[in-house]
């Protein structure tokens, strides 16, 4: 990594985990069959993320995947999402989603749970207001999927 000098702030946004997930998104396929899915669009920039969920017997999320196009931040965020939500109940997933959006807006890290600590890499986006939606797009889609809505409103 040979970033030019003076780009420390960029590293707040493009932490290694983001660059890594952005370059090689995990779970980047369509879950088929799936129990719930929803699409999030950011019409301003053309970013698009579709989230797929499969539920286990007690209604917990068993598996998650996504398809989409967009910037490193939106793809990394979706990729991290698919790694984080399996095992959560819908309520827990929505609470996590709310926390994530809060972090993206305010920059407050949260290491209280392992899941949040992993996602805290996304908190760096708060310094880049026009990019906050990139980080939250997949999570809006998640909420929509859990609500049984097909398209996420772009907030």
């Amino acid at each position, binding site marked *: 990594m040979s*970033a*030019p000098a*003076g780009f420390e*702030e*960029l590293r707040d946004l493009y932490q290694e985990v983001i660059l890594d997930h952005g370059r090689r998104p995990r779970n980047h396929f369509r879950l088929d069959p799936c129990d719930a899915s929803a699409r999030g669009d950011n019409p301003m920039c*053309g970013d698009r993320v579709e989230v797929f969920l499969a539920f286990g017997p007690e209604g917990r999320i068993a598996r998650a995947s996504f398809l989409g196009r967009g*910037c490193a*931040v939106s793809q990394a965020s979706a990729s991290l999402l698919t790694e984080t939500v399996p095992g959560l109940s819908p309520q827990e997933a929505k609470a996590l989603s709310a926390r994530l959006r809060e972090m993206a807006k305010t920059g407050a890290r949260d290491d209280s749970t392992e899941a949040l600590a992993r996602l805290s890499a996304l908190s760096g986006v708060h310094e880049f207001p026009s990019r906050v939606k990139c980080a939250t797009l997949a999570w809006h889609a998640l909420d929509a999927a859990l609500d049984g809505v097909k398209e996420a409103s772009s907030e």
Partner: protein
Amino acid sequence: MMDAAPARLDVARVRQDFPILATTVRGRPLVFLDSGASAQKPRAVIEAMTRCMETAYANVHRGAYRLSELATEAYEAARAAAQRFLGAEHAEEIVFTRNSTEAFNLVAHSFGRGLLQPGQAVLVSEMEHHANLVPWQMLRDAGLGIGLRFVRVTDAGELDLDDLARHLAQGDVGLVSVTHMSNVLGTVTPAAAIARMAHAAGARVMFDGSQAAVHRAVDVRAIGADFYAFTGHKLYGPTGIGVLYGRRELLSAMPPFLGGGDMIETVTLEHSSWAAPPARFEAGTPAIVEAVGLHAAIDYVTALGMEAIEAHERDLVEHASARLAQVKGLSLLGAPQDRGGVFAFALEGVHPHDLATFLDRRGVCVRAGRHCAEPLHARFGLEGGTARASFGLYTTREEIEALAEALDAAREFFA
């Protein structure tokens, strides 16, 4: 500068006219390469607006006192300046709008509903800004029997004149409305030829001069334009004001657009009659101070000389074409023969948004997205958008160098 044929732009001096160019972004000098979205304002514009508000402000067309007369004179002088700037024959052919977008909505409404006939079609191109597309979609969907068709863009990013001819040959085209310069490809279209073709087929023609009027001297009569629109904020002028040129016979035959004060002749509760153009199309209190600012902007570019501005931009375009070709992994959108100072591009492995954020950290401002031209991006398979650098009269070769270097750095960073 005693002898000036054609005058050269003294860019270093010009830059001193723009206060914002002396500011820094996160401690770095501002390299503003988004003038195509909106240009910065010279001190002359800012001061003209300030002076208007501090010494000569009142509502126009209304008062029987000196201050209001002064404001009215200033407002109408701005109209005359726009008239001269576009080479229009009459001042009444100049309608002030909020921006280019409103100019297209005005023509779509008043010409579209007033003078187009059911069964006729409007012809736009695949490279239009949404401002010159969505109003026509809305007209098409209004149930008046007016169609909407699209002229193709070639792979090089030029207007496909053969396709234009094919559409016109169908005989149903009432209006051709195309850009005079693409805000994505930079393509300058052959306006006079397009107007000749349209007129020969019995169609009227409107040009979107939002970009072109900034980069080239425009003469609506030489072109043969029936309508021509541009927007103040891209011409180094204020926000909140745009210009629609319309030929007098057409404007006179068109019903009004918005209703309210100043656009009427007489009003009773039951019925109103309309004032003559341009008042007919300027309902309510206009953007008075902004008209004064636009006048200053027109004076500013006119004093520099549109030829000198064009020559400077041609130099920048040539330089940028060569320099950007050296950036590894960069592909330019379009390769038009006649390009104004706009370059949209993709950088391999780097999404335009990440790229713009990265460049911003070096003080380099470019825009990322689809630049209000989604269909064009779809046409080129670039749904994810492009990054775009666009030049103003204050842009320098050094800034292009800064861009190129930052692009190299971005590629390394995201690799």
